[in-house]
């Protein structure tokens, strides 16, 4: 294969559009020219594929291929500069850049060409208002600010503002916000609201925001994409809260993150360069693993803040190698790692597009609060106050052009140093190509499916027209027998499957029972009947917890290995049975055409996969034991008190109470409950995944036989139509139909070859893309 010639997604897109266009034209002709048997055309129930439905489906695919929606999910490790990176990609400040973790809703930022004023749309705003109302009730019960602070801790100004608004009943979220300031304000408030809901123990309704259309969405023109030719479809960034921003809702957040990352065309993980050396930190490692596992080959990494790199620090290559080492779950190619400075990129983009504003601010000789970025620009732009003075002098002497030129030079320099060109080129391009891949794959598969259906619908009519009437009638009778024969095979196969499943299920229950016994003997016994487990040091307590965790994991590993082996055997046996059934159907020699079976995808029952949960990370809380000791008060006065105390029977006189550490403890009962729940949940989860797998096996079998049954019925319908043509039409009309069908089948044959070739090229392109990914 010539890789270089076919690795062009645009070419694949144009070609599949061409093919769909040609096919649509053929469908149109088929509709007008009555190519299909009458029954096929009239029958329009759910299972039938009428020409009209196929045309609709093709039109939908054409639209999807032409308008590919690309979503680039951005996730960040703690304080890595995710918002700044998003602002840098957008080229303006659309997201609040706060040092607080943004445990808010995921937010979409969509590139809309020509949209200079950012506008935010939040269609599902009502649940947030309902939360605000609940908070209002709680807040109003607390009268004094001092008391409130007991709940919220020290609050910043914006939080205080929000509390006031909620308290006074003035707070409400709208569906739309217009302009930078309003958008900014809304996002900040939403963020504060999430934090506030945690303080007041009122659950933020995250569960109601499951899919992208429900997230707040900001529309704005991305400065860097403004000059690019408008391509149909949309390009959207998804600001995704990471799992370590989740706090108490960690499980919920992980679930949300999984959904968001799964639906994204590509994923960018922003890491903090200055924190790279603390990656041994378990939190960070867990975070990276979660993201890497879900994103897989769609992942790119931005190592942000390289502007803070010291002279003796490692170079880009060494840095990339180190990052590769951090990813244990996937093999990340070095090309996918981009050391960048998001703040430089953001400042450069902003100063580049607002040079006039900078000059104006110098005229005014002051920087408004909103324009704090300008101060950063002077600071980071090389030269700081000195440079600013030079530009000021230019302006004072009336030479604004020269001042603009100097600013432009710095803008360019900052951009270069930010290394963001590479990000825009590679990461965004990759997001586009991944989105293309998904859409193209679906279009190719649908087109082939529809085309094969049409070919199958046309062929029997022609067969009947060119064959002898009595032969056709004999074939029809034989095919009807085949239909019942296929039905019997299906019944037999289902019986066999049912028996095998019962056997499998019996074995599974035995194994799960064994697992629970083993778990009890090996793990639960370690904490059973131990209300409090004591340790001298915290280290010892940690070692104990790890020991329990390892034992739990080992138990689970064993059951997993056993079930996997059993499932593999089951899968192999089912495959063997199905192969036998397929062979028996093949031997029927349906319609005299052995190739008929090729059009029905053979069933693949390898769908039983067991879902295993790892033991909980926190098995128990280690608490310090405190003991109160009586200590003699120092000095003469202490001695005097003790003396009189002994006379008057007051033994605590002259003594002080002091709390001292008395080792560490773990609540054994809680731990026992947690482990027992885990064991039961594991068994239940395995059971659930097996149920799901067995259901799928059943569906696959039914689906296969149903499709096959439908194929033979369509074949018979076609033959019957041909027979009717033969009996009711004059010779020349019959010849005209045959010639029409011949020409149609010829065109469809050519199109089929083109689709096959396209699929070959597409597979190759995908291979090249994933080779690039690893």
């Amino acid at each position, binding site marked *: 294969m010539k890789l270089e010639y076919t690795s062009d997604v645009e070419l694949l897109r*144009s*070609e599949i559009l*061409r093919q769909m266009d040609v096919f649509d034209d053929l469908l149109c002709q088929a509709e007008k020219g009555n190519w299909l048997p009458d029954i096929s055309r009239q029958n329009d129930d759910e299972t039938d594929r009428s020409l009209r439905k196929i045309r609709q489906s093709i039109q939908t695919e054409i639209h999807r291929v032409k308008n590919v929606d690309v979503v680039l999910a951005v996730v960040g490790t703690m304080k890595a500069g995710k918002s700044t990176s998003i602002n840098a990609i957008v080229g303006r400040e659309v997201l609040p850049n706060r040092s607080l973790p943004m445990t808010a809703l995921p937010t979409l930022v969509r590139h809309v060409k020509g949209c200079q004023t950012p506008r935010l749309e939040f269609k599902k705003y009502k649940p947030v208002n309902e939360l605000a109302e609940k908070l209002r009730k709680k807040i109003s019960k607390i009268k004094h600010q001092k008391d409130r602070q007991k709940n919220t801790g020290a609050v910043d100004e914006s939080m205080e503002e929000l509390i006031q608004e909620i308290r006074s009943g003035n707070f409400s979220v709208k569906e739309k916000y217009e302009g930078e300031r309003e958008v900014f304000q809304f996002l900040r408030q939403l963020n504060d609201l999430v934090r506030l809901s945690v303080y007041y123990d009122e659950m933020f309704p995250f569960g109601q925001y499951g899919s992208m259309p429900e997230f707040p969405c900001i529309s704005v023109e991305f400065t860097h994409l403004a000059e690019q030719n408008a391509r149909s479809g949309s390009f959207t960034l998804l600001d995704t809260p990471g799992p370590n921003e989740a706090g108490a809702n960690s499980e919920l957040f992980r679930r949300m993150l999984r959904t968001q990352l799964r639906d994204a065309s590509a994923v960018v993980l922003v890491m903090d360069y200055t924190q790279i050396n603390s990656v041994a930190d378990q939190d960070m490692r867990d975070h990276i693993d979660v993201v890497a596992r879900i994103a897989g080959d769609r992942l790119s990494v931005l190592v942000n803040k390289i502007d803070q790199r010291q002279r003796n620090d490692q170079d880009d290559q060494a840095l990339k190698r180190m990052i590769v080492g951090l990813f244990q779950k996937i093999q990340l190619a070095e090309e996918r790692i981009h050391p960048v400075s998001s703040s430089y990129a953001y400042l450069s983009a902003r100063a580049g597009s607002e040079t006039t504003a900078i000059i104006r601010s110098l005229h005014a000789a002051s920087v408004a609060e909103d324009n704090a970025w300008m101060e950063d620009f002077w600071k980071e732009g090389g030269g700081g106050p000195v440079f600013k003075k030079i530009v000021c002098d230019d302006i004072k002497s009336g030479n604004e052009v020269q001042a603009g030129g100097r600013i432009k030079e710095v803008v360019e320099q900052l951009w270069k140093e930010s290394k963001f060109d590479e990000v825009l080129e590679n990461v965004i391009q990759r997001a586009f190509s991944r989105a293309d891949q998904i859409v193209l794959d679906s279009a190719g598969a649908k087109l082939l499916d529809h085309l094969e259906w049409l070919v199958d619908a046309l062929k029997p009519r022609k067969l009947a027209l060119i064959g002898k009437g009595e032969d056709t009638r004999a074939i029809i009778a034989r095919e009807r027998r085949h239909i019942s024969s296929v039905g019997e095979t299906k019944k037999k196969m289902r019986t066999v499957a049912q028996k095998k499943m019962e056997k499998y299920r019996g074995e599974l229950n035995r194994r799960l029972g064994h697992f629970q016994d083993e778990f009890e003997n090996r793990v639960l016994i370690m904490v059973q009947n131990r209300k409090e487990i004591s340790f001298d040091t915290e280290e010892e307590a940690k070692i104990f917890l790890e020991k329990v965790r390892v034992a739990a994991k080992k138990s689970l590993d064993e059951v997993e290995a056993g079930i996997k082996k059993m499932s593999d055997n089951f899968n192999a046996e089912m495959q063997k049975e199905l192969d036998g059934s397929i062979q028996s159907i093949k031997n029927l020699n349906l319609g005299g055409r052995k190739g008929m079976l090729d059009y029905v995808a053979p069933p693949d029952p390898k769908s039983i996969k067991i879902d295993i949960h790892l033991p909980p990370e926190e098995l128990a809380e280690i608490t310090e034991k405190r003991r109160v000791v009586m200590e003699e008060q120092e000095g003469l006065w202490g001695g005097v008190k003790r003396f009189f105390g002994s006379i008057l029977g007051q033994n605590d006189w002259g003594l002080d109470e002091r709390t001292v550490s008395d080792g560490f403890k773990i609540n054994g009962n809680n731990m026992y409950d947690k482990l027992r729940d885990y064991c039961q949940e594991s068994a239940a989860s395995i059971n659930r995944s097996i149920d799901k797998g067995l259901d799928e096996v059943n569906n696959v079998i039914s689906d296969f036989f149903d499709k096959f049954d439908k194929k033979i019925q369509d074949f018979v319908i076609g033959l019957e139509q041909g027979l009717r043509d033969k009996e009711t039409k004059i010779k020349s009309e019959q010849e005209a139909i045959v010639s029409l069908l011949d020409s149609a089948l010829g065109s469809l044959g050519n199109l089929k070859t083109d689709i096959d070739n396209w699929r070959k090229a597409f597979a190759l392109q995908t291979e090249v893309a994933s080779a690039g990914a690893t």
Partner: protein
Amino acid sequence: MSDKSYPIAAEATICQTLRCLPQKFLVDFVNGIEVARDNRTIQIQRSGSIFQRMYDGFSGQGTRRQGQINDSVIDTLDSSLQWLNDLSRELAQSNLAICKVNERVSDLVQQVSHLADVSFATREQLQKLTQTLCVRMHDMERRVQQVEMQQAAGIHLDSVFAKWAAGKFSDVSASARYYAALQELWWGDFGDCFRSCEKSRSTELLGTLMNKGITQLAQDVGIRPTDVCNTREIWLQAPPRDSHNDDMGQALAWLASDRSVDVSPFTVCVTRELSRQWPRQVPLLTTADRLVRAMTQEVFSHD
């Protein structure tokens, strides 16, 4: 380097490489002769084209003043017919050309028979032509009956592909090379045999032709026959302009000039500059196999 206005004579390299050119010229020429004297239309339409250059070359009048030649030849039907007689003897090597010339001459005889003011000389020329063609047609029928024609077809096929393998078509794109081969075969012994033999034999002939075409095309491009390539950038990519003679490109365009995009999309794609819309029936990604099948079908189902 070619000069676009330079006459092309029978012994010119392009006519040696594409032996179908004189055959096609002859057919176009006879179709251009009109009793009603409006034959100028055809000739004017082809002015500056390969046809005009061949016209000048074959008439040996390329060196004389162009205006005079055109006037002297086109203006009189007599002189046209006389020249046609000579050309038929000298150039008509394929049965296809002879049949087509014969068909047209029969039409002319019919037309002339209804006219009162046609000169005796014209009638005599037509008579002479009919006789010559009749002899050639008989000869052809005799050949068809014999194994000789089948052998000739085989030899023709081998010689065309040997010419291709020797790089004689290398001035044009890979797919255009196959088109050149198809035209050579269509106008020569191979085409004659194809048109006259039974369906099973003709299918076999086309099968052999396509296999050879696929092999040679894949070899030219340096891929396997089933490899999928970018149609525009690989199959239609002509060698760089400054290193090739454009006669071949022009000649192929002329050979395909009567083809329409609806009926022969691959031919149009291969032989013309596609500045406008891409023919919808032609895939943007394709294999040597698909290309060869489509082009062969377009040329050999050509009546």
